[in-house]
């Protein structure tokens, strides 16, 4: 098991800057997610940690040892790719035992180890099968087995479930997480799927354009995003933004939006100019008596809840409310925004203003 520290790591490909000065720490036994849209630098970051790319500058520590310029083979990590990359001419058992045999482990020991891993992954009965006839899920299990069998310090996975269909993906992500809980191995996992990241991760790094936007526990990042990008990338539907012009000072506890006063956590920063008030859909409540008004544009039924899209003078806003509430398109209604959960952003930089509510999370991430 290992602690991994990434410090000021930068990567340039020719004149293209893929990763700008990233720093974060992955603790022993954590399931750690690198999350971001395509092209954000998450895979490049993972490949640098693995030794498949060398950083242009900065340091990478695995268990305190600086490995930034070392080749992958000297880092004692295992990599699982999206396209399983199994040996097509070998059967399942041979694929899994290959890393051990090439290390020179005695045959008897190898057999025992492979049996043990097959048991964990539930693939004991297919050890003699050729790779060709296996389902996507079984192939992924074999690829995992080949990674686990070496007992590496850490597992690196690059969208390992990306090639599977939605239903099976859900199943495999649970299986993967349960496997991690049993083995407790440090795992770094790259994905562009925010739900997968929230679901599986102990911690998340959110990247965009080569920059680490925020780093922390999933619920903290969801509740208190550091930037508008994070607020929009995480959550489905994402955080609502109400754009307005105004001035807020240190200690402000209400903002004025088109004649309505909206209470929010006490601010610790001030700003004047273009501001954005951010509110999650589940914190928007329909209340006829509320001063802030909106007109219902659409409703989307989701079973337990429904998403109501409303038009306001500051743009569209979505509310998540119980599905038994009767709402019709065209209706005008008031909107209560849950004061404890609001975040104010500087609209031009996209950064969240610090308040008493998000201070702890922002100072940490």
């Amino acid at each position, binding site marked *: 098991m290992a602690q991994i520290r990434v410090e000021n790591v930068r990567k340039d490909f020719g004149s293209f800057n893929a990763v700008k000065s990233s720093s974060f720490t992955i603790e022993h036994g954590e399931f750690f997610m690198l999350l971001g849209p395509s092209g954000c630098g998450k895979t490049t970051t993972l490949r640098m940690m693995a030794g498949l790319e060398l950083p242009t500058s900065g340091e990478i520590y695995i268990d305190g040892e600086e490995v930034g310029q070392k080749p992958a083979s000297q880092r004692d990590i295992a990599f699982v790719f999206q396209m399983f990359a199994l040996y097509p001419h070998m059967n399942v058992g041979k694929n899994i035992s290959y890393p051990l045999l090439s290390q020179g482990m005695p045959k008897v020991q190898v057999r025992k180890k492979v049996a043990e891993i097959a048991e964990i992954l539930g693939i004991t009965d297919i050890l003699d099968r050729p790779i060709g006839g296996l389902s996507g899920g079984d192939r992924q299990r074999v690829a995992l087995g080949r990674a686990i069998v070496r007992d590496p310090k850490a597992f690196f996975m690059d969208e390992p479930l990306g090639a599977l269909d939605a239903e099976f993906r859900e199943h495999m992500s649970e299986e993967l997480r349960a496997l991690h809980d049993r083995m407790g191995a440090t795992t770094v996992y790259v994905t562009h799927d*925010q739900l997968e990241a929230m679901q599986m991760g102990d911690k998340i790094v959110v990247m965009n354009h080569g920059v680490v936007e925020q780093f922390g526990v999933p619920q903290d990042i969801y509740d208190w995003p550091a930037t508008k990008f994070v607020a929009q990338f995480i959550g489905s539907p994402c955080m609502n933004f109400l754009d307005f012009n105004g001035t807020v000072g240190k200690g402000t506890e209400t903002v004025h939006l088109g004649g309505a006063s909206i209470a929010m956590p006490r601010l610790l920063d001030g700003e004047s100019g273009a501001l954005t008030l951010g509110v999650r859909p589940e914190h928007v409540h329909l209340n006829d008596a509320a001063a802030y008004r909106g007109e219902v544009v659409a409703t*989307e*039924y*989701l079973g337990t809840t429904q998403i109501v899209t409303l038009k306001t003078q500051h743009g569209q806003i979505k509310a998540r409310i119980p599905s038994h509430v009767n709402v019709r398109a065209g209706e005008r209604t008031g909107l209560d925004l849950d004061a404890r959960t609001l975040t104010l952003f500087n609209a031009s930089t996209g950064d969240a203003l610090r308040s008493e509510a998000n201070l702890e999370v922002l100072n940490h991430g």
Partner: protein
Amino acid sequence: MAEVILNNVSKRFGSDTALDGVSMTVPDGGFVVLLGPTGAGKTTTLRMVSGLDVPDAGEVSIGGRAMAGLTPAQRDVAMVFQQYSLYPHLTVRENLEFPLKSPILRTPKAEIDRMVGEVAEVLQISHKLDNKATALSGGEMQRVSIGRALVRNPSVYLMDEPLSSLDAKLRSDLRIELKNIQANLGATLLYVTHDQIEAMTMATHVGVLDKGRLVQFGSPREIYENPVSIYAASRLGQPRINVLPADVFAGAPQRAAFIGLRPEQILQGDGQECFVERVEHLGDQTRLHLKFRAHDLITVTDAHTTLAHGDVVKIQPANPFYFDATGARLV
């Protein structure tokens, strides 16, 4: 616009039965979503209506007209696929005009301009009309391909996972747009997806397919709140419905073999003790993975719950579904 009727349609590919006696009516102005896992027969159904494939048995009719022997071109249908398949060497405008410029139609130039302008307006791509089709983002390309179907004003639109290749945010925007367009035009739409959110949010009717058979047909709410089987109940709802042996809780009716519990059918605080295996914070909701007498159970709880691995919670069913040994619902 027109009604589409499938009457007892069957189709085999070699020894595989792709469709097995499917009868279904897509009402005039309806938005029907076919739902099911890979291989359930969704796309095959669509191809029967479009004429890209012909049924081995049964009939398809569109607007009262029997389709037997008609080619796709003669059926007056428009299709949108997951892959946009735009003409890469043409501009957005030329792509949209293309179906209207067919020599058979002889549409006057002014009429073409008017229709293209209108559709571009609806899809919010007016400012991109003179761009090359390849110089667009994925969402814009899919809008253009939907637009190319709209300009033809066919009797029915057939769409095969048109939003699947888009990212999450775009998908949710286009969902609302597509639904609005359909509602405003009063268009008849047959739509294939395996994304249950698309089915729930857009459909007037959902057809649940299982191995080539249509097992339930109704509004999303009907299927969610009144499923006919375990299979149908499992199609909608996230997290998925929990299915346990009926005898784990008291009060099961006689023939019940399984009890089905959606998260809202599990009351917390009273009843049987469960062990908290894992707490999953998804932001807006928190999922509890529970262990109950060797059964796994997933339910949702308050987003900021203090529950953690190792805690014990009490649960009891509230108006659960019961199913017999074959998985059929008992009512």
